[in-house]
């Protein structure tokens, strides 16, 4: 019932909005997963986009060539399906005629969207997929603002080697994110580093007992969990309940208070994870974002949201630098040359379209706080992670 009321209210609001739409608005295209098994990370992506739009419009919009524009999002649910993603991209380019598209969650879908970006000359900035080979195709209209797997693994790899966390076991999603992470880590670590058990599970599987039993048998010292928060919380609970005393290493989804709420401080104590945005880090850009995010959404911020937030700003700044809200090639050139300080750090795209934001490693402390342990120059004590 509540949902029905909300849907009606939303429809009314949208209709009301379209009546005003003709006060110059620029629509940015968004591709994401709003339903299906990857809806959870998709939500954070959308939060980041929505927050950015709110901030920009709240400042009165943005100016290009002396004209002020408001920002608006055209969102399509691609459900981690390559054909749907490609169709959405084509539709955004030909029918909705957006100047730029942001988002996507799944690497293979981004791979299908990229050629269309090039054909239709609509730049695509992805904000979450991590497969390194996406930026190897030499597509001038394809950009990635988030760290790819190789960059993420470098941070964790340094930690793993420094703490001699071997044998290292994995529990990973059997999809692009999980498998890519495992392969990347294996490629990064030296040949004599002992990699133990690798436990793959399908998205939607929830019982880790067989993996845990094997991890115990293999005597692993550390377990890397390559999955998102929902299965992550289950896995950690099951691992700790089973009495396994291993060092837990996780993904950025496992570094926020929301994750803490799914479990408790005892379960998480000592766990490390890579993080694109330690929410309490004593950096002005991060604090401002975290405050705004929790004010709007009532919970702690999330790396995916920050990456997406920055992508919107990148889009806007590119349009401003290009002096156009419609000409794809000019916007693309502007993106290529763009340099600015985003929430996740200094943003600048290399000649493959890949940005190099800093990747942090945070660790959970005893009381449920976090500290930053990598990179050394950003290291901060408990409570500042």
């Amino acid at each position: 019932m509540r949902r029905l009321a909300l849907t009606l209210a939303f429809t009314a609001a949208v209709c009301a909005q379209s009546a005003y739409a003709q006060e110059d608005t620029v629509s940015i295209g968004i591709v994401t997963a709003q339903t299906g098994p990857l809806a959870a990370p998709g939500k954070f992506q959308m939060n980041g986009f929505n927050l950015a739009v709110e901030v920009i419009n709240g400042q009165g919009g943005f100016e290009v060539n002396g004209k002020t524009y408001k920002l608006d999002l055209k969102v399509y649910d691609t459900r981690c399906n390559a054909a749907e993603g490609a169709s959405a991209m084509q539709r955004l380019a030909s029918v909705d005629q957006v100047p730029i598209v942001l988002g996507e969650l799944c690497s293979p879908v981004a791979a299908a969207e990229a050629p269309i970006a090039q054909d239709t000359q609509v730049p695509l900035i992805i904000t979450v997929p991590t497969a390194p080979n996406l930026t190897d195709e030499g597509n001038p209209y394809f950009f990635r603002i988030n760290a790819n797997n190789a960059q993420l693994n470098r941070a964790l790899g340094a930690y793993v080697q420094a703490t001699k966390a071997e044998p290292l076991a994995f529990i990973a999603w059997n999809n692009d994110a999980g498998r890519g992470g495992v392969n990347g880590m294996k490629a990064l670590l030296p040949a004599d580093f002992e990699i133990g058990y690798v436990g793959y599970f399908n998205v939607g599987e929830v019982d880790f007992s067989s993996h845990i039993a094997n991890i115990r048998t293999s005597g692993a010292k550390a377990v890397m969990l390559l999955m998102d928060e929902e299965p992550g919380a289950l896995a950690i609970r099951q691992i700790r309940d089973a009495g396994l005393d291993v060092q837990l290493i996780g993904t950025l989804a496992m570094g926020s208070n929301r994750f803490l709420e799914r479990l408790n401080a005892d379960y998480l104590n000592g766990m490390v994870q890579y993080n694109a945005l330690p929410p309490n880090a004593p950096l002005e850009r991060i604090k401002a974002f975290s405050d705004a995010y929790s004010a709007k959404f009532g919970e702690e911020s999330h790396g995916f949201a920050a990456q997406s937030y920055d992508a919107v700003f990148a889009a806007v700044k590119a349009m401003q630098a290009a002096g156009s809200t419609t000409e794809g090639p000019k916007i693309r050139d502007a993106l290529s040359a763009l340099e600015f300080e985003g929430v996740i750090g200094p943003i600048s795209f290399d000649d493959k379209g890949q940005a190099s934001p800093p990747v942090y490693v945070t660790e959970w402390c005893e009381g449920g706080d976090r500290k930053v342990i990598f990179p050394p120059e950003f290291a901060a004590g408990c409570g500042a992670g």
Partner: protein
Amino acid sequence: MATAILEQFINGTMMGSIYVLMALGMVLIYGVMHVLNFAHGVLFMVGGYIAHLFFFNLSGSYPVAILCSMVTLALIGMVLERLVFRSLRDNLRMQIVASLGLILIVQNGVVQLWGPHALQMRPASVDSLVRVGQLSFTVQHFVIIGVVVAAVTTLYLFLRYTRLGTAMRATSQHPEAAVVVGIDPNRVYTITFMIACALAGLGGALLGPLFLIFPQMGDAPMLKALSAIIIGGMGSVPGAIVGGLGIGILESMSTLVIPTDYRDTVVFGVLILMLLVRPWGIFGVRVRGEN
């Protein structure tokens, strides 16, 4: 090594019990009605959601929530049998189309109503741990095994010793003869479907709190349960039990020897093998004229 095998064996029986519950429902429907109900997985999932609904919006009593879930699913089963499956009784292909359509409706309907994110439900039985040597389980694990044992026993007694149960068995053996002896097949079919759906709801209500309640939670278990009833023998209740437990244990034990990303392949491989070698299953009866 021995402890590892034992541990995986026990892990496997836990998940296997869930497969048994789902398989029981499917085997009843197939045995009595000769309907292959692919929608059983989403009904299982709805059971989890309904239990969650009653748990949080009513007493907060877990047993009551389970009961409500079973009753609701039985009612849904009655509606589905009357409206959808009754008219498709001998048409295998259209049954499949209908059950696939049901899956779309139910799964996406749930997403519309509850959103795409997973729900958590933690009654006391899930939070209390029990240690057995090195291993630890939640009380819920034992609850599941216990309930499944109870359900199986009840079902067996029902089928064997009650009029209705006997009527169901009669109809499954020979529908025309059943009519001759005065059994109303429509009534039997409806009741069968209701019982099967109630079992599915029970399964979802039991499994949901242990892990998470989410729209896809019944998809993989349905495929495993389908494999279970085929391996065990379509139409055989003991077959469903052996098949369900067997698959659960096979899944767990296979992680000891093969790369874990091929776990599903092992189950499907065994399924294919069984179909090639002995398609009527372990406990099934070979029917003359069919291979």
